[in-house]
């Protein structure tokens, strides 16, 4: 560990520092609002350090070559930090019900975010595993945070399935390590390209399949999605939000890193596998979501469908923009979509939190006539639903356009067709929410108030949906700069 390593790792160190500071302050300060404010304002330090690294560093490795600090990792770090920042704002009202445990809530969220930032940067199997657990364990504690029947049920289900998927993933990692002789992704890529492994490709097949299963649980793709609806419904709503955007983004970061970095030589095999799983996720997620009456459960199935859309970009390995060093269109589409999806889902869940904390119900039918009681909150929720369908001028439309374009360029036209059809199917249940909001008969006309942090978070996320939808150019450039590392690797 050198001074240079400390500089390269400074965003993670700063974030862990803020988390520890929050724990200590929680013991010393009586007002919990101060603790929340410190957690929020403290994020400025890691964000500033990440921006400094983005402008000054092209691509470097740190800590014995186990972590890469490149634009790909930094893109995800900024995304995770932005999500955490908006999340702390948007859940300000909700967190008040935790009373004296608010400090622990913020600290666990920040520790988990540290894991997600490391996860985007790791280039070595052991560190990938450690970062994955650093991400998942605080989330399990957070899922059980309310300590009532539903929340503990969500916690135990998340923990057991996360531990089991970790074991599957680890077995895959150990097999890949054993048959390629290294835990470094770069060296694994070399060994796979040479192809002189004991037991030949079967051993690699077993290892890679187990890793796909392990990651399948983490990113909630079919057929490893059964924990998602229960955990999303039972967990506290801010944690459901966090799971659906940040944890998913980090999962896709490490998935892209492993498959595009370490296994490009066998891309034909895993490309087809991911294409099939993507089509399954889109179809199953959207069809089952239609039958749901609880809005959190509906959005859980919607998350599974969206994991399917994002997998389209992972599967489209062959898609390159024209030119000598063409941009890998699949991964840049994944990055763009993850940012767009984060803005959309955050907006949707903040609106649901604001409404449900007053009406006390998460059933879709109980959202009737909310448009008259809370016009702005309802407008943001309706707008987020349009973005989830993928209707212009929203972020979701641009994201889907970009991903399906990558699929067509990558010779996966059938996958793009499946994607478009399932988007049309999904319009049914998203528009049902909009219809209930605007046309349903309200049981009372009493206005639903919300505090200024929640209103600010709603404005920020709603504004981002519109901004990404109307002016996608800047975010696209960032995404393309971030995935440039994939075009540099030897094929």
């Amino acid at each position, binding site marked *: 560990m050198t001074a240079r390593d400390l500089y390269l790792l400074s965003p993670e160190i700063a974030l862990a520092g803020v988390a520890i500071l929050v724990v200590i302050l929680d013991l010393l300060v009586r007002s919990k609002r101060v603790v929340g404010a410190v957690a929020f304002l403290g994020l400025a330090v890691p964000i500033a350090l990440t921006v400094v690294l983005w402008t000054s560093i092209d691509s470097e490795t740190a800590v014995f070559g186990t972590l890469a600090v490149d634009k790909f990792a930094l893109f995800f770090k900024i995304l995770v930090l932005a999500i955490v920042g908006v999340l702390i704002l948007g859940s300000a009202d909700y967190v008040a019900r935790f009373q004296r445990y608010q400090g622990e809530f913020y600290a666990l969220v920040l520790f988990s975010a540290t894991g997600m930032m490391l996860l985007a940067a790791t280039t070595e199997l052991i560190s990938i595993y450690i970062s994955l657990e650093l991400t998942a364990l605080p989330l399990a504690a957070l899922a*059980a945070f309310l*300590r009532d029947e539903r929340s503990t049920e969500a*916690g135990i289900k998340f923990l*057991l399935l996360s531990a089991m998927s970790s074991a599957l993933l680890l077995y895959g990692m150990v097999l890949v*390590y054993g048959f390629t*002789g*290294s835990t470094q992704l770069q060296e694994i890529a070399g060994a796979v390209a040479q192809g002189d492994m004991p037991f030949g490709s079967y051993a690699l097949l077993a290892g890679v399949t187990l890793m796909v299963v392990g990651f399948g649980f983490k990113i909630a793709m079919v057929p490893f999605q059964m924990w998602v609806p229960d955990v999303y419904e039972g967990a506290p709503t801010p944690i459901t939000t966090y799971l659906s955007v940040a944890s998913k983004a980090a999962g896709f970061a490490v998935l892209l890193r492993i498959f595009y970095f370490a296994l490009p030589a066998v891309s034909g095999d895993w490309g087809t596998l991911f294409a099939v799983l993507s089509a399954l996720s889109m179809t199953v997620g959207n069809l089952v979501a239609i039958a749901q009456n609880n809005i959190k459960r509906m959005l859980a199935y919607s998350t599974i469908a969206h994991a399917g859309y994002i997998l389209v970009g992972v599967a489209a390995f062959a898609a390159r923009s024209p030119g000598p060093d063409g941009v890998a269109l699949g991964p840049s589409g994944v990055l763009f979509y993850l940012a767009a999806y984060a803005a959309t889902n955050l907006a949707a869940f903040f609106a649901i939190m604001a409404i449900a904390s007053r009406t006390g119900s998460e059933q879709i039918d109980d959202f009737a006539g909310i448009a008259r009681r809370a016009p702005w909150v309802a407008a943001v929720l309706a707008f987020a639903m349009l973005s989830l369908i993928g209707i212009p001028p929203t972020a979701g439309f641009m994201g889907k356009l970009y991903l399906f374009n990558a699929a067509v360029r990558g010779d996966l036209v059938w996958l793009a067709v499946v994607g478009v059809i399932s988007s049309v199917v999904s319009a049914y249940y998203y528009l049902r929410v909009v219809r209930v909001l605007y046309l349903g008969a309200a049981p009372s006309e009493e206005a639903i108030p919300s505090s200024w942090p929640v209103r600010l978070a709603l404005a920020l996320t709603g504004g981002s949906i519109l901004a990404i939808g109307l002016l996608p150019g800047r975010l696209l450039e960032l995404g393309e700069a971030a995935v440039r590392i994939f075009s540099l690797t030897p094929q």
Partner: protein
Amino acid sequence: MMPERLLVLSAVLFSIGLYGVLTRRNAVSVLMAIEIMFNGVIIAAIAVSRYVAPAALRANPAATGDAVVQMVLTGQVFAIFIITVAAAEVALGLAIVIAVYRARGTVDVTEVNLLRR
């Protein structure tokens, strides 16, 4: 002993654990089954490191210092990390099991199904 036999042992342990996870009803037993899965993985890590390390040393006879340490010890370091993190996982798991028990008086995972209704 040959690494192949150790790999078979690890696969058997892993499968026993997986079977336990899928069939056991008591949450504590499920946690124990997950531990068996982890132990299978640990044995696999040690077994493959016994295979990988000599091969790597033969391939790079000129390597010295840190490079040799990295070649020889990676599998064992992997195993130690798995043991450590698995311990943390179980500690948290038991804490949540206690919370489940307090909330509803049972740790039978087939009865923890309020969200399915």
